[in-house]
């Protein structure tokens, strides 16, 4: 019998659920696969529709999780096995070795300065570099360095060890082993978030071949002040600012071709947001959004789109481009589309840079979690609600709840609400069980 809750996934949904439960006195284990919590929201520059700085509103919550006496954060960890039932789950969690002793590391960053190896930075979508010993981003929580053994010279070639030599706190420990922990929890909340569909599969859009065709998450990292270009929107091919920028919606989504027929729900509004950010940075750049339906359905979103049109002169074109071609000299792009308003004539739009808004898909790891827990997945890999109408955060397994994007496409306010909702269900579980034991 346990009074604690396990939360799998350290993005905004996982963080919200953790804090709600911890703040009412419940013990929480927050398991996160990457070295830091924060998830997708930490990668965003600003959030719609308020244009709040994303990490600014997220970081205090991350720090609160870290300092909370009722939350045990297990970052760089994965759930391996789940046994038992509601009220009494036994979960095996494997903590991967960072090769850095967390208690000793002060986050000073000296090791990162001296490490000689560069590797693509996953947090920056590969657009910038990190070192072999790294912290995923400046406001990472916990602020502890991690060594990536696949690129580290010591682990690959047995040489270097500069970080160990200069660490002022003697925190480097190459001998660190993976640690297995067994947790006893009364309920589990799944909050694993999403990934992006690989748009290079759609050859007609040229992602991966044309340098100036990027994805929306790459755009976020470029426009973010803490990103690889210090917040300057620069074309990957020549480092110049684009004079024209085009967003293409529904890349891989609502596809008639079969794989991803659903709507990712957030792209229309985030494209509007990114357009506004682009115009803020470069008021003279022409910005276009090519869309099928402008799904600004949330609170304040339609007004946000109206503002983009009237205040920022963002151009909205109802069209779904057939293909994108590249001018090999300038590396600029030409987008071919049917102009619906002009009687569906074929038109061409020139663009210095194109941002593709890809379908957002549930994490592939959800399969592993589904196997370990017995929770059903739907045909796309989202965790299935027990009843789509009346039990949105429950699953087919009693005591296991779901929230956030991994349940179905949704934005941050909805993820936060659903996470609190899952926390309520977990709290109910504990209350009901304690009432039973009292009898």
């Amino acid at each position: 019998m346990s009074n604690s809750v396990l939360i799998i996934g350290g993005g905004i949904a996982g963080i919200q659920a953790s804090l709600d439960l911890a703040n009412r006195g419940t013990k929480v284990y927050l398991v996160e696969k990457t070295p830091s919590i924060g998830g997708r929201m930490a990668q965003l520059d600003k959030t719609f529709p308020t244009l709040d700085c994303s990490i600014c509103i997220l970081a205090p919550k991350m720090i609160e999780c870290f300092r909370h006496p009722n939350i045990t954060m297990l970052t760089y960890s994965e759930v391996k096995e789940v046994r038992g039932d509601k009220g009494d789950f036994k979960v095996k969690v494997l903590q991967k070795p960072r090769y850095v002793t967390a208690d000793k590391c002060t986050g000073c960053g000296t090791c990162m300065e001296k490490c000689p190896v560069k590797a693509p930075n996953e947090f920056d979508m590969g657009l910038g570099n990190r070192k072999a010993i790294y912290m995923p981003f400046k406001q990472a929580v916990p602020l502890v360095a991690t060594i990536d053994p696949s690129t580290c010279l010591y682990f690959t070639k047995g040489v270097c060890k500069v970080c160990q030599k200069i660490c002022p706190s003697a925190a480097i420990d190459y001998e660190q082993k993976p640690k297995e922990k067994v947790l006893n929890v009364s309920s589990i909340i799944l909050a694993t978030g999403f990934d992006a569909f690989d748009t290079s599969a759609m050859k007609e859009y040229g992602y991966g071949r044309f340098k100036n065709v990027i994805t929306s998450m790459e755009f976020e990292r470029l426009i973010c002040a803490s990103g690889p270009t210090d917040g300057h929107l620069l074309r990957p091919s020549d480092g110049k600012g684009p004079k024209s920028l085009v967003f293409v919606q529904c890349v891989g989504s609502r596809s008639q071709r079969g794989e991803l027929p659903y709507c990712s729900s957030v792209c229309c509004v985030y494209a509007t947001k990114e357009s506004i950010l682009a115009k803020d940075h470069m008021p003279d750049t022409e910005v276009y959004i090519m869309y099928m339906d402008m799904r600004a359905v949330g609170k304040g979103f339609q007004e946000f789109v109206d503002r983009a049109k009237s205040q920022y002169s963002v151009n909205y074109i109802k069209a779904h481009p057939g293909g994108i071609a590249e001018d090999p000299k300038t590396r600029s792009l030409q987008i071919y589309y049917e102009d619906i308003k002009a009687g569906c004539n074929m038109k061409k739009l020139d663009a210095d840079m194109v941002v593709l808004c890809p379908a957002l898909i549930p994490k592939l790891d959800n399969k592993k979690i589904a196997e370990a827990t017995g929770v059903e997945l739907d045909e796309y890999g989202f965790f299935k609600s027990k009843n789509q109408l009346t039990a949105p955060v429950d699953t087919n397994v009693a005591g296991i709840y779901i929230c956030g994007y991994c349940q179905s496409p949704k934005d941050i306010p909805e993820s936060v609400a659903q996470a609190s909702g899952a926390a309520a269900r977990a709290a109910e579980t504990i209350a009901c069980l304690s009432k039973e034991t009292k009898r």
Partner: protein
Amino acid sequence: MSENKQPKVGVFVCHCGVNIGSVVNVPEVVKYAKSLPNVAYAEGNLYTCSSEGLSKIKEAIKKYDLTQVVVASCTPRTHEPLFRGACEEAGLNKYLFHMANIREHCSWVHAKEPAEATEKAKEIVRMAVAKAALLEPQTEPEIEVQPSTLVIGGGISGMSAAVSLAHQGFSVHLVEKKKTLGGKLNELCKLYPTDMQSSEIVEEFVQAVKSNPSITLHTLSTVKNVEGFIGNFKVTLDQEGKDEALDVGTIIVATGAEVFEPSSMYCYGECKNVVTQFELERLMKEGKLKNPKNVVMIQCVGAREGKEGGRNYCSRICCATAVKNALEIKKLYPDAEVSILYRDMQTYGKDFEDCYQKARESFVQFIRFDAEDPPEVAVESNGKCTVRVRDILVNDNLELDADLVVLSTPLVQTEDAKELSKMLKVPIGADGFFFEAHVKLRPVDFATDGIFVCGTAHSPKTIPESIAQAYAAASRAGIPMALKRVRTEAITSVVDEVLCTGCGTCVKLCPYNAIQKDERGVARVNDVLCKGCGVCAASCPEKAITMRHFSDKQVLAEATAALGGD
């Protein structure tokens, strides 16, 4: 509270390994600190935040009878709670602690100018000591929280919140102005994406409410008055003319929404064959839909108006509802021609997009029009209608016969919302719906502590979205109630009642409604609601308001200490 003894400030200057020590000459700063007025003790540490460093602080407090402590190291935004904790453990009130940031604001940003950085560090320490000497102990008011909630509204959201709270172990008063529970769901028909009837769902939830002994149901009741604050709300209900008093700890607003009636738009009200989508649901539910041959649905009627003061929002659920009802009509009457005239097809997410595809496959006609060129409805002599629309996808004007025109109108705020918002002192947004504390991160909280919102009272949403949000409100309301007491902010403002002339400027400026005028007309700050921004203190025309821990005197002492004079 302040003792009139000479301040004895202890100063701890941190090397932070090499982070500070390699740029700032820490021993010099320690020596300088010792020379400052009011400093009784100073030392340097390698890592003040280490357990060793913290022990040294605690020892020094006891040994030297320190009255305040300054740590010169990194940013208070990460480490202040840690050092405050150490002071408390040594018996010193945690508000008698102050930090000097000589890392993020000094050694790290003036790394190439060690001499200037050292001078700056000295001045930062002098500033911190000047303020520290004036610090006074503060207490965080603690209030008891009643373990009961008032849920206003007995629709799907109110019922879900009530049941969740009851399961969490709290008592709930569920107030519903009608005789029956269920709200708008009582008038809906079949619900997509399942094949469930709305009435089945209502029945399920009503059973859960009625069978739970922790929920007290008050039907035919409205909220008449609310006083008090989180943990202790005193509510008066009007139950069919009789007053009933309740004491609750938290309040959840779940009052739902109304369906907009588009009078005189598209001949609504002139012709009985022009109905709203909501009225269509009722017709289908009561079996009164008479074999229509041509059904034309028009989307965005009275919504997304894009004009100053208009209903500019998208009501989120109308496209999905129209598509669902179109499919239902096709099922009942396979020969019926059903057309949906739309601007954007807002069938978002997984299930609605699927429904949209099904509708297309079932030959529901989707006709896209431009906002600037809306369709027109004309009533013919035989009572049927003709709908004219410019289809922008084929670039052609169409004329459609319609024996039933269905207008999709938005959800709008209820009539009583304004009254309720004044009673609870919670705001309503520009779109008419209740306005939450923070659009992204606190979607179900109000800025006023202890009051929450969920369901369509917050904004248009589907049933599962309402239920999830209702659970969220139940989770948030559960937190203070589970703790049984809450501690509120110590850094609050206080009014000098002698100086106050009752001008009321502060009352209007406070974003948390934390200042009210009492019976004598004198302003008084509610310690529990005040969040400590200081705008009242900065604005009071009589300089009658002081902000604890950030008084004018303290702020000026810190600022002017940098200028060499005291």
